[in-house]
């Protein structure tokens, strides 16, 4: 088997809490990614998707402890912490942070802020950096003369384009985009998603799209992982996740998502709330909210198992042959 471009292997992240105790935010996450692939990381707030991305970037706060591996072309970049991550940060793996469009320095021109990582990483200097910045801006759909403008002269959609250009400054192979369209209107969202798709295909860029919005993933990604309570509940092609889900959470999450075509039916809601992550979880974390839970779910932790081609799910239902509906 060939080595994937990026592979997460049993990634765990704990945060030390100020009042003592630990919060286990990412609990054994594994998935991999090929060059040029568009991968969705989906889940509700607090499910650990952003924390998992920050650990790939080596940008977790000091109170975090990480275990497991993040392999880039087979090399575990977490092996010696900052020493092994930093050569790859921005150069190989870049991230557009949530709210990045609002994080530009207001007193510096947009162009100079895109050039800065080029200088810092020795990619380009002076006129070359300037030319590359202008090319990048044009590539993301911003006229190059806007390089001398300040962030407040840009609309929200343009700032998001500039944030994407900045992440691409050092020509990474992998782009992590955390909720890149959440604060944007649907028409601007469509523009940004179209841009991300075209960048991924033009530069053979692997894209991880982190979002709570399943339809966005359904329209943009090839594969996706659904996260719940810090774990991957299911990971598969986006088509399989929608049409043949193997985890009740995936099925319910789609059912809870309104759709234009579905008519006036009531949308499902999932009762209850995710479990606390500062206490040990016994059994399946989704069991208290699951509509299909049965005997083993309350006590035995389901493991992520193969249920199809490049399709894994962590649910006891897949281990047990259910009675046929009609005898």
């Amino acid at each position, binding site marked *: 088997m060939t080595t994937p471009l990026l592979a997460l292997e049993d990634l765990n992240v704990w945060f030390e809490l100020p009042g003592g105790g630990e919060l286990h935010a990412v609990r054994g996450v594994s998935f991999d990614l090929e060059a040029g692939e568009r991968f969705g990381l989906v889940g509700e707030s607090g499910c650990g998707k952003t924390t998992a991305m920050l650990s790939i970037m080596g940008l977790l706060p000091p109170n975090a402890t990480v275990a497991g591996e993040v392999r880039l072309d087979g090399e575990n970049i977490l092996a010696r912490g900052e020493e092994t991550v930093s050569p790859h940060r921005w150069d190989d793996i870049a991230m557009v942070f949530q709210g990045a469009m609002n994080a530009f320095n207001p007193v510096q021109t947009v162009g100079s802020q895109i050039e800065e990582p080029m200088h810092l990483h020795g990619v380009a200097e002076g006129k070359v950096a300037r030319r590359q910045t202008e090319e990048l801006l044009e590539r993301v759909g911003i006229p190059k003369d806007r390089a001398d403008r300040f962030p407040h002269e840009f609309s929200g959609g343009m700032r998001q384009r500039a944030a994407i250009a900045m992440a691409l400054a050092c020509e990474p192979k992998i782009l992590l985009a955390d909720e890149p369209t959440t604060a944007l*209107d649907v*028409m601007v969202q469509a*523009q940004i998603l179209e841009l991300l798709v075209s960048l991924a295909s033009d530069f053979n860029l692997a894209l991880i799209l982190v979002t709570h*919005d399943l339809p966005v993933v359904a329209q943009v990604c090839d594969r996706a992982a659904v996260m719940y309570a810090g774990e991957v509940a299911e990971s598969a092609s986006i088509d399989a996740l929608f049409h043949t889900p193997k985890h009740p959470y995936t099925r319910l999450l789609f059912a809870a998502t*309104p*759709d*234009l*075509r*579905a008519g006036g039916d009531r949308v*499902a809601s999932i009762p209850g709330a995710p479990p606390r992550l500062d206490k040990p979880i016994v059994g399946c974390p989704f069991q208290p909210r699951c509509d299909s839970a049965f005997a083993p779910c309350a006590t035995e932790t389901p493991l992520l198992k193969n249920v199809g081609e490049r399709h894994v799910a962590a649910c006891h239902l897949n281990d047990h042959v259910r009675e046929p509906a009609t005898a």
Partner: protein
Amino acid sequence: MSTNGSKPLLEVEDLVASYPVGRGLIGAAKREPKLEVHAVDGVSFALNRGEMLALVGESGCGKTSTAQSVLRLIETSRGSIRFDGQEITGLSSKDLRPLRRRMQIVYQDPYESLDPRFRVGATIEEPLQVHGIGSKDERREEVKRALELAGLTPPELYIDRYPHELSGGQRQRVAIAASLVLHPELLVADEPVSMLDVSVRAGILSILDDLRDNGLAVLMITHDLSTAAHYADRIAVMYLGRIVEEGPTREVIENPQHPYTRALLSVVPKRDPRDRGTPQILRGETPNSIHIPAGCRFNPRCPMAIAECKTVDPELRRPAASRDPEHLAACIRV
């Protein structure tokens, strides 16, 4: 007086609301003309009891300003708002007060809209105290009833809690309970679920759905067309301060006529990955509502615009291809 079955509960006609914007010190010194944002620029609609109308559109289209003018939370410069047959645009705040309890609003962010120092019970009881309704015990019963309507049962479990002890969904239910405690006839819901996780949204929206079935008129403000498609009876699409298309939900969603509605619907992501159509992406962003384009306000971005569109400001009328007499669009090309 209060129940007049056939007449709409709310009738809005040619409503205009604008805000002044600063010219800046230099602009003022140069005596540049004073600028105004035309947030609402000639909006008309009606809402019946037991009906949910969704005002949809992108940020800045004037949907929230429309809702706020209806509640007289912002002043209007022109037009008429009739609530249960009574004109309310000219009413003093004293005369408005008895009407206020009949119209309530639920805001977008339950993390901001609840006072963190108030227990749930006190938050819900406050409107009753403001309007001087009931004895202490009666008020307590009303609070419990409102909690139950909002799906927080048993009410005893929630009444003495503080907002920080509740999840986002539960907080929004408290906000809804506080808006229901006065038995309003009109409820304005301004993006009631956009701050909440997907799994709890349906629970909140089904409360509004049930209240509508029991006769409440609901004006829902949302940017989410999928949500509007599921819950609203009618949809009005706004663009730059004006309703550009309006009609029964299925008709607007399945047979959109205005080119803006068509483009907007085409870019809404569908949850079925096999349903990847070709989104019709409009370039650029919505122009600001200080300088509204002449003629049809959508003409600079419209794929169907002809020369006439630059001069004629189209009125809402029934499009040729509509299948429903209540379906209206403001476009001379359809």
